[in-house]
């Protein structure tokens, strides 16, 4: 794992934060740690679920006053 990335999904309703993460994950050639920053609490449930379904690793979920930060390790699927 060589780099860290942040996806800004603030203002998007689920499942669009997941779609943004999915688009990113499809491009990775090696495992990458990526954090999705969102305002829809749905990401707390959906991103870990998306990880389990598609073979990525959910690392952590954090909630601040108005934002949710979900970090995953996106792994190459090809």
């Amino acid at each position: 794992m060589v780099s860290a990335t942040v996806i800004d999904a603030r203002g998007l309703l689920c499942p669009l934060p997941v779609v943004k993460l999915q688009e990113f994950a499809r491009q990775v050639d090696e495992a990458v740690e990526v954090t999705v920053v969102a305002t829809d609490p749905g990401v707390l449930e959906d991103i870990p679920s998306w990880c389990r379904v598609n073979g990525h690793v959910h690392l952590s979920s954090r909630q601040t006053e108005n934002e949710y930060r979900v970090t995953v390790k996106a792994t190459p699927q090809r």
Partner: protein
Amino acid sequence: MNSSPAFKPRAVALISGGLDSMLAAKIVQAQGIYVEGVNFFTGFCVEGHTQAVNSPKKAKPKRHSALWSAEQIGIPMQIVDISEDYKDVVINPTHGYGRLLNPCLDCKIFMVNHALDLVGNDGKPFDFVITGEVIGQRPKSQRAQTMPLIAKESGAHDRLLRPLSAKHLPTTLPEREGWVDPDKLYGFSGRSRKPQIELAKSLGITEWSQPAGGCCFLTDESYTKKLRDLWAARGKRDYDIEDVVLLKIGRHIRPAPHYKLIVGRREGENRFLHGFRHKFQHLTTLSHEGPLCLVDGDLSHAERRNAASIVARYSRGREAAEVMVRYTDLTGVSEEFAIQPMAPHELPAAWLLTN
């Protein structure tokens, strides 16, 4: 068609989050076929997240039904945002609408067509498409006459397999090629859910999503009333994704053709609407706890007072003689009104767009 021993057929299954699509994918997967799911985001999907906005403190977990379904049956799944291209389906459906603004037949054709062009998570294409359609299950799209139409107009033809009703339908490519065993497909028809529930039990599936009235807001009477109103007010049948989202949130009130009020009904909605304040004129209450109200349109001074009176009516000060309400325009300039809350009988029912 490839029939070499090394050939491993691959299928993409349309997953709505309901039981039928879950079963259809599971039946084919159980025959050793590689199955991936796809869930299309149209903008009109009824999902837990609108509930999350409405009821943030509710104990029930908010989950994406299709992702959850995929997890239950153990298939990978992608979510595809088709909301922009989907507008044409909603605005100009070739085969018309169902009871409300639901273009179910065009929708299914559109989704199967899109599924054909997808590649899997590994970048490889699929050999056929699976849907959970059952003949006679739905009055608009799932009829004996419409099943061949969907296969033809989507361009899928015999690459569209409906495992739950396959015994009533023409033989498809995966059956003909021996990729799937036709004897292990089903002949369900009609509106009864009993055969599906029995099959679910036999497959060890004990829980599934049961969205009341389907999984699409276009089958919702209250929602479609607001969408029709939006089109009428704008003089054209058009929308963007922000419109679609805002129609799901709040109490919609149209006192006049040129403006509409969107009034938050609870804390979650007010918090969500808060994110749109910079794009709309808006009203908030100062003297009493109350909703945030976005204004879609331009207001004269008298109309601002009228809007303030309506907002006051939905505040904690509804019984008070006077409520302080602040109106803020798009440049951030505000004006304050000491206003008597509108009495319930003074608010004409025709203004209310929400059931």
